[in-house]
């Protein structure tokens, strides 16, 4: 946990404070009281509280949670399901895992409340198999909750029965998308299907299904206990409460933070994150996971919320936040993320399956120094095609890293394709190692370490590097004691 100034703990309120394997400790901190309270209310009243709190989905979409519950409630069906999305596929994100490991009961309690509100008697937690500790803790928690009568038949002696089972995900990013997640739970191919029908109408096994994210659930008990008014007093006009971020990259303090909506990026990076490492210059911050956008200096004072992030060309996503400094090449950054989306595209729809691959290939060409200005046009064009036409959220957002870096760092792209230079000095193919003849004493050390014999010269005479042979391994640069070798 990063430094505690400017932070408010709602979702993470119990993490680190209780023994997650002991239900009594959870109960001692007001655990399951919200469920008890909810069962004294009508489902409509509970939903109304959630609606008034302004809570929006923390899984990335930001859909109003109360409204989603209401929609699921309104569909008539004998069997309904409540699902917890614990797939957390964003590389580097671990807020959901932390909640499940540190406070599993809060999710169980919230799911039961959700079941009560929507009319579902069955809950399913879709959790990635790579989270063994979280799975273990959930199993223990479910066992204890059943023992205490907090799951099972006639909870709190009321006419309400609810139980929870675990379902395991195989780790595909797109399986976090709710329709893909449902298909995966059904044993079908984990790929998204068109909406409508939305899961609230026809989800798991065709039954109305309410899918919410782990962090979304973690907010529910608090809202019911402290009141929607209290919750709604935190945050911005359209985004209430707090958000957990996984702060990473070139900042001094990395880790999970929970800040009120409306906190600025500057506060997060410089106050909580303690500024950029090694005194380097801040260059960009990527929010929203692999398909979020890169924001710059000019965005630092924007209050973080769902809508502002989208307006700036990025998104909230599930809360990834990666800080970059002057040494990061933005073309390479875009390529890095594209590599991820190409890997993770399910391949169902043409723009995402083909388009991202082509985007990646073009970025690769550019970082190889073989790009042209026409490639930049293609990047932008393709990016928009993919964004406008893809079937699911993955494709609709996957070009964000390219489009936002092009928007904010166009010169850097131009440098790659026009001057064939990488200003950050990251694209190897675009670098040349050059020996300064004035500084070179002709010690022959470099020539001896060069693995491809690219360096020639008489002893005691300045050496030269044959650029057509050099593979840019940097060995000579490291070896030279006289600082005679520089990178261009």
């Amino acid at each position, binding site marked *: 946990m990063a430094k505690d100034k400017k932070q408010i703990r709602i979702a993470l309120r119990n993490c680190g404070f209780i023994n997650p394997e002991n239900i009594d400790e959870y109960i001692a901190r007001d655990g399951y009281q919200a469920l008890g309270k909810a069962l004294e209310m009508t489902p409509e009243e509970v939903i109304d509280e959630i609606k008034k709190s302004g809570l929006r989905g923390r899984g990335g979409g930001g859909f109003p949670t109360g409204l989603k519950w209401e929609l699921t409630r309104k569909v008539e069906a004998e069997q309904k399901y409540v699902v917890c999305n614990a797939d957390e596929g964003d590389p580097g994100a671990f807020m959901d895992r932390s909640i499940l490991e540190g406070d599993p009961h809060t999710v169980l309690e919230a799911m039961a409340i959700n079941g009560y509100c929507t009319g579902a008697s069955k809950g399913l937690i879709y959790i990635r198999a790579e989270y063994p500790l979280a799975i273990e803790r959930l199993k223990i928690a479910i066992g204890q909750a059943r023992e205490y009568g907090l799951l099972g038949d006639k909870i709190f002696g009321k006419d309400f029965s609810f139980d929870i089972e675990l379902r395991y995900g195989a780790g595909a990013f797109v399986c976090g998308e709710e329709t893909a997640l449902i298909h995966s739970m059904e044993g079908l191919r984990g790929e998204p299907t068109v909406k409508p029908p939305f899961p609230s109408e026809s989800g798991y096994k065709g039954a109305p299904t309410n899918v919410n994210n782990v962090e979304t659930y973690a907010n529910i008990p608090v809202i019911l206990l402290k009141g929607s008014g209290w919750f709604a007093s935190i945050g911005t006009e359209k985004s209430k409460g707090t958000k957990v971020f996984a702060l990473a990259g070139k900042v001094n303090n990395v880790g999970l933070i929970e800040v009120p909506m409306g906190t600025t990026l500057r506060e997060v990076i410089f106050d909580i994150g303690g500024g950029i490492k090694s005194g380097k210059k801040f260059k960009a911050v990527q929010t929203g996971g692999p398909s979020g956008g890169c924001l710059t200096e000019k965005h630092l004072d924007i209050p973080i919320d769902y809508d502002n992030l989208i307006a700036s060309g990025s998104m909230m996503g599930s809360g990834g936040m990666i800080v970059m400094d002057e040494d990061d090449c933005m073309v390479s950054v875009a390529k890095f993320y594209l590599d991820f989306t190409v890997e993770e595209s399910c391949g169902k729809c*043409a723009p995402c399956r083909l388009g991202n691959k082509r985007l990646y290939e073009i970025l690769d060409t550019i970082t190889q120094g073989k790009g042209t200005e026409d490639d930049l046009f293609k990047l932008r064009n*393709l990016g928009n095609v993919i964004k406008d036409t893809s079937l699911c959220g993955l494709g609709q957002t996957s070009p964000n890293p390219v489009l936002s870096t092009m928007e904010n760092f166009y010169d850097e792209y131009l440098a790659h394709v026009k001057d064939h230079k990488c200003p950050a000095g990251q694209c190897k193919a675009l670098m040349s190692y050059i020996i300064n003849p004035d500084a070179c004493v002709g010690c022959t050390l470099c020539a001896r370490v060069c693995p491809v014999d690219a360096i020639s010269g008489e002893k005691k005479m300045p050496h030269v590097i044959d650029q057509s042979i050099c593979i840019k391994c940097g060995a000579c640069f490291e070896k030279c004691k006289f600082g005679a070798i520089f990178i261009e």
Partner: protein
Amino acid sequence: MKTIYINNNKYNFEGEPTILEVVREKAGDIIPVICHHNTLEPHGSCRICSVDVALQKDGPRKVMASCHTPASDGMHIFTDSERVVKLRKNIAELVLSDYPEDKTEAAKNKLPTEFQRLLERLGVYKTRYNAKETHTDQEKDTLHPYIKSDLSQCIRCYRCVRACDEIQGKFILNIYGRGYDNRIIKDSDSSFTDSECVSCGACVQACPTGAIYDLYESKIQPYDKIVHTVCTYCGVGCNLEVRVKDGKIMGIEAPDDAEVNAAHTCIKGRYAFEFYNHPDRLTTPLIKKNGRQVPVSWDEAYDHIANKLNKIKEQYGPDAIGGISSSRCTNEENYLMQKFMRAVVGTNNIDGCARVCHAPTAYGMQKAFGTGAATNSITDLEHTDCILVIGANPTSAHPVTGSKIKQQAMKGKTLIVIDPVKTELAEIADYHLQLRPGTNIALLNMFAYYLIKNDLLDHEFIKNRTTGFEEFKEQILKVNIDEYERITTVDKHLVEKAAEAFAKAGNAMSFHGLGVTEHYTGSRTVMLLANISMFTGNIGRKGVGVNPLRGQNNVQGAADMGVQPHQGAGYLDVNDPEIQKYYKEKYGIETIPEKEGLKIPEMFDGAINKTVKAMWIMGEDVMQTDPNTQHVRKALEGLDFLVVQELFPTETSKMADVVLPAASFFEKEGTFTNGERRIQKVNKVVEPIEGTKADGQIMVDIMNRMGYPQKGYSADVLLREIADVVPFFAGVTWENLGTNGLQWPVTKDGKDTKILHSKEFKIGKGQIHFFDFEETPELIDNRDKYPFILTTGRNLEHYNSGTMTRRTPNKDVLTEDNLWINPADAKKKGIKTGDRVRLISARGETYIKAFVTDKVKEGVLRSTFHFPEVSINNLTGDIGDIETLTPEYKVVAVDVVAGG
């Protein structure tokens, strides 16, 4: 009423269509698509159909895929805004970035594929997005006789996968891998040949590129015309679109809008057409002279026939002559055949192959309901909640209907299968009541017992619409249910549960096949089946009823036309004086035969004891398909005179005194009536090959030759005559049949009937009958010596004796008959899969290859009968249905011995 604006034009619409559907309806085909197909669920994978959408006038526009986005009230749709036009082109270019460069335009002398037409429509032939990595070097899969793939051309629209899932229900095609490297595989990455593919061709028809194609490259063959006709291979009655060029068939597809079979056929309908110009076709009349059949002219043949028949008639009377008509022929031809026998020869000795299949259905259902035909339509499957399949293996014998049943079962509708064999449907059924062959009566009585005992009845229906219930109830409550359990070998609790599921379903529908009828107690089983539907009130509305799966394509029609010895055209009793008068008037003749004629087995018996002297067989290979081959041979040898009309030389035609070369269904016009009473047009696809004539023309010629003035063979003219004679055809004309046909009864004003008995039965009240179980004499007499029960069935790939299908590449798909035997029996007998084994019955023996499987229970064997090498009918006996004499093909006492 909702409003939508399409390119600023205002339209009203109703219901919940997608944007694409509304736009197509209101403004025509202005949105290009490629992954979408009308016969498949929306998928949304190609995004070519993207349109700009604003939720209100001048509101912000968003790109949406029109094929799956619902149209909503007040939407403004822009189908060709600059943005969407550009987006579509870009997507097409992306697709081309991983597509063979030389396949963007039609191949030489071929028509363009759907994808090539799309490229042309979008004006895109090249891509700006050059790929570093492509998938255009996939290995072709060309080993299967019909279905082939060149997946280098695959554009990942997944139509093939969806066609196999949603239309055929076989789940052969899958997507393997993810993202950019995903690809289409067959089963777990095998080939069409090694997969469980049933060669229905639905995937071929669905594929918009050349990635999955067939032997004939059906979809890209240039053609002079496309002729709409009806399949000749089974009672489903699939509509076919046949491509013809220079008088030759180039390929067959299923119409996308056919009510019977939208975009679907089975292997036979789509691919088994090459028999039509096979060199084996008979092309000249033959007369047997000095023991050899020699070619003669038509005139000589006709004269010879007329002379002979007249002589026999003079000498022995008309009843010494018998006729067998064909369910493969058209209604018009069947009508003519029976009219020839009755009005020209002067005998009621006319019968058809329904005798060997569905005569008990006609009889039993007439007894129960008054009408011997399916009560409902196949489309009703969409409205039913529970499907009972008894004695039928529709996924093989009625494949298109079989698929529909399977689809519904997979959607969660209750499926009950009563069958001794674990059929494909039984495998997915909620209840499989795997009874011992020959015990249908016992099982249905158990079913009825639980309906009554557990009060799962529709009392209202029973009271108002049936008679005989109280008597039935009294009898059934007396039966010994444990004894039935022992006889059927089916757990009574399972039957109880199935009965409950059937009764509690809102709508329950039954289907039955030859496993019901081809038994000693076939007709009675049909009546008991009718009972079950009446007890539960499942008659007279959508999604219910009793529905026979008709064997041959026109069994229904042949019976309708009067091809049976006791009823003339329109099921009117021949021994009723009023009716005799009616027919005399209609046919314009002075005398008409008055007593019921002979059924097929009786004709054969007559031939053997010399009371029957001459027979005329139209398109039936009785030597192959009728039971007890030795007996049939003796009968035919005993005749003085035998005329056979055929396409190919057959075992039967070889014995004929006169052979007349007939034309196939591709070469003539007329109508077929499918198993749901649907009268459909058969159009002439190609001219008859030289030397042949339509069976109907032959009948007309001979009628005239024998002095009866019958107008020339034309479907139009004959239908008018039939409409005048057959009451339930009253409103049928060639013109008003349209492409989807009409379901009889068709009233004078041309209205047809989807559902029978909705208000009352033709005979007033439904008749409830009780029959107790009776063991077939076949087993009583023979089981000591022949302890196994052999039951026969059909495979998907072949049609009956295979005269047609074995003359097509279907022979390479399925090459031989085999015998299923339970592993325990096989072990006892020392038999392994692939062994040749000897099968012996009280009549004869044959050799066949064994296939060890638990799809049959111990003591039961199952085989097909498509190949003459294995003449299963050497084994079958003379026992027939008590009421109709339909032979008991489904129960033969045999023994099996290892080693051939």
